[in-house]
């Protein structure tokens, strides 16, 4: 993408830094969120995800760096800009002494073109609770009311800070449906999370933040060089197989220790096509512990965190 096109992205961040006294909460963050995508900010607690989001939505000042959200500097705090972003903060809000309907109506009053209040309440699944005072809501319901408050203005860009933390599995799936609903409307979503399944289920692209730095970013399927990392075909050698191996794909790297054979290759199917007839020819009808393993997002993520927390900067 050209420079101009990158700056037209809904979120454009270069060298973002936030210092609290001597502590750098955000050290070096570059982000590009493209129009219409669900973008995940992934990282362990205290990595700087929330601080980053708070700077992007203009409720926290940055120490330095270039930040453009919908083409504006969030620090300007322009009302017409605010009307186009939706924010669901990390901590669930309490709207004491008001009913669900009153809360959503209240926030709708601040936007030039809000979604119909009843529709938003139904969408977050609080239709039956609309007349209830918010103190009577369960934790999951209160969280969904938060989402309703965040999206009632029909924003073009939605920030969800750990939208599903603390929700039960059913409520989580419902929250996912909401994210997909807005993606389906062509809106852009930025969500922070430390759940990998959430990233795999919802996001097209993600950035991994560790210790205030983006250590990896790109399409979820390619994070941490996932696409380039070879698959591992492994089995346990039995007596019948003898000492050798059949001819394997050219890129194959073989490790063998205590009887466990691991063949790393980008062509696991070809490797299998060679291994199976070879085993059969030796009279072994079942290769013990045979499996093909591709690195999961979780392994890649844990690797990224480990190498960045122990070994310092990549």
């Amino acid at each position, binding site marked *: 993408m050209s420079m101009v*096109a990158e700056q*037209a992205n809904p979120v454009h961040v270069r060298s973002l830094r936030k210092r609290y006294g001597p502590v750098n909460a955000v050290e070096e963050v570059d982000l590009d969120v493209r*129009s219409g995508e669900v973008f995940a900010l992934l990282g362990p607690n205290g990595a700087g995800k929330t601080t980053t989001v*708070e700077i992007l*939505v*203009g*409720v*926290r000042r940055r120490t330095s760096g270039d930040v453009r959200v*919908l*083409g*504006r500097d969030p620090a300007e705090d*322009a*009302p*017409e*800009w*605010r*009307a186009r*972003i939706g*924010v669901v*903060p990390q*901590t*669930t*809000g*309490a*709207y*004491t*002494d*008001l009913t669900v309907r*009153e809360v959503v*109506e*209240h*926030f709708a*009053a*601040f*936007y*030039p073109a809000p979604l119909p209040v009843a529709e938003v309440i139904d969408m977050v699944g609080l239709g039956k609770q609309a007349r209830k005072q918010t103190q009577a809501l369960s934790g999951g319901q209160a969280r969904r009311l938060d989402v309703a*408050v*965040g999206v009632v*203005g029909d924003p073009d860009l939605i920030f969800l800070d750990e939208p599903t933390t603390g929700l039960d599995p059913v409520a989580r799936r419902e929250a996912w449906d909401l994210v997909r609903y807005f993606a389906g409307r062509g809106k852009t979503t930025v969500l922070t999370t430390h759940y990998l399944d959430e990233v795999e289920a919802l996001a097209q692209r993600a950035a991994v933040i560790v210790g205030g730095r983006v250590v990896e970013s790109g399409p979820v399927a390619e994070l941490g060089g996932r696409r380039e990392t070879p698959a591992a075909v492994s089995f346990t050698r039995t007596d019948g197989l003898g000492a050798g191996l059949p001819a394997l794909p050219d890129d194959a790297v073989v490790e063998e220790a205590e009887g466990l054979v691991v063949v790393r290759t980008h062509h696991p199917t070809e490797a299998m096509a060679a291994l199976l007839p070879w085993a059969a020819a030796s009279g072994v009808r079942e290769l013990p512990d045979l499996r093909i393993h591709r690195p999961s997002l979780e392994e890649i993520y844990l690797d990224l965190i480990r190498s960045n927390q122990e070994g310092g900067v990549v």
Partner: protein
Amino acid sequence: MNAPDAVLAQESGVVLDPARSILWRAAVSRSSVELKSFFRNRQSLVFTLLLPIVLLVVLGSIFSGTVPGTHTDFKQMFIAGIIACGVMSVSFNGLAISVAIERDTGMIRRLASSPMPKSAYFIGKVVRVAVTGTLETVLLLAVAVLAFGLPLPSTAARWETLVWVLLLGGVSCTLLAVAFSSVIPNARSASAIVTLPFLVLQFISGVFFPYSQLPAWMQTVAALFPLKWMTQGLRSVFLPNDFAHVEPAGVWELDRVALVLAAWCLAGLALSFLTFRWRGPNVR
């Protein structure tokens, strides 16, 4: 994609008039939420609205005799003071507690993340204080007149004084409440922290004891704060003119009452500007 700045510039050209209607809608919505939260919240009803009325009924039934050196019923002096307390209660206590709660519950953070014009928040607070302050004054006056035979202000000038003393006092307490709320760490401790200065000022500002009989240092401390001047102004409204000779200055000093309260309004405004935060560690 269009250059975003151009899109925005175009939009803001069109939004000029809607911006005004958004402020109006936001202010109406804020005010209605303020009043709903006040009247639905047992804590705010009991602590800020009813407490002064309970004090009036209980202490009004206990106090007897005349203020030493005058022919004025002690009760009447107390009633003038408790009306000032009532207005301070709904403006200072009520507001400081509500801002602290809104900070703690995430309301302020969500409002700051919305396009709500910031002024709408403060307009809502003013409406809340105006409505509850008027209600408190009317209730206290009604109880005082019906149960304790307080004579209503005898001249138009006294009614005028009643209005401007309560207005200036209410405004200064409102602004001070916004500033004071910044020292309240969380919603749970709000009532307790607010009650301390309120209680101390009540005792040293001539509500329960004649101001002139307090130790000099206490008078000096009280004279630094608005409540003393509010009670003094209201004594001039409800008590006979010859009561003025037991005031420390020997006269009502209404010009000084106006001056001090106006100064507190300005100081409160400045302090609110310096301390009110839409974001920050206290805003959850």
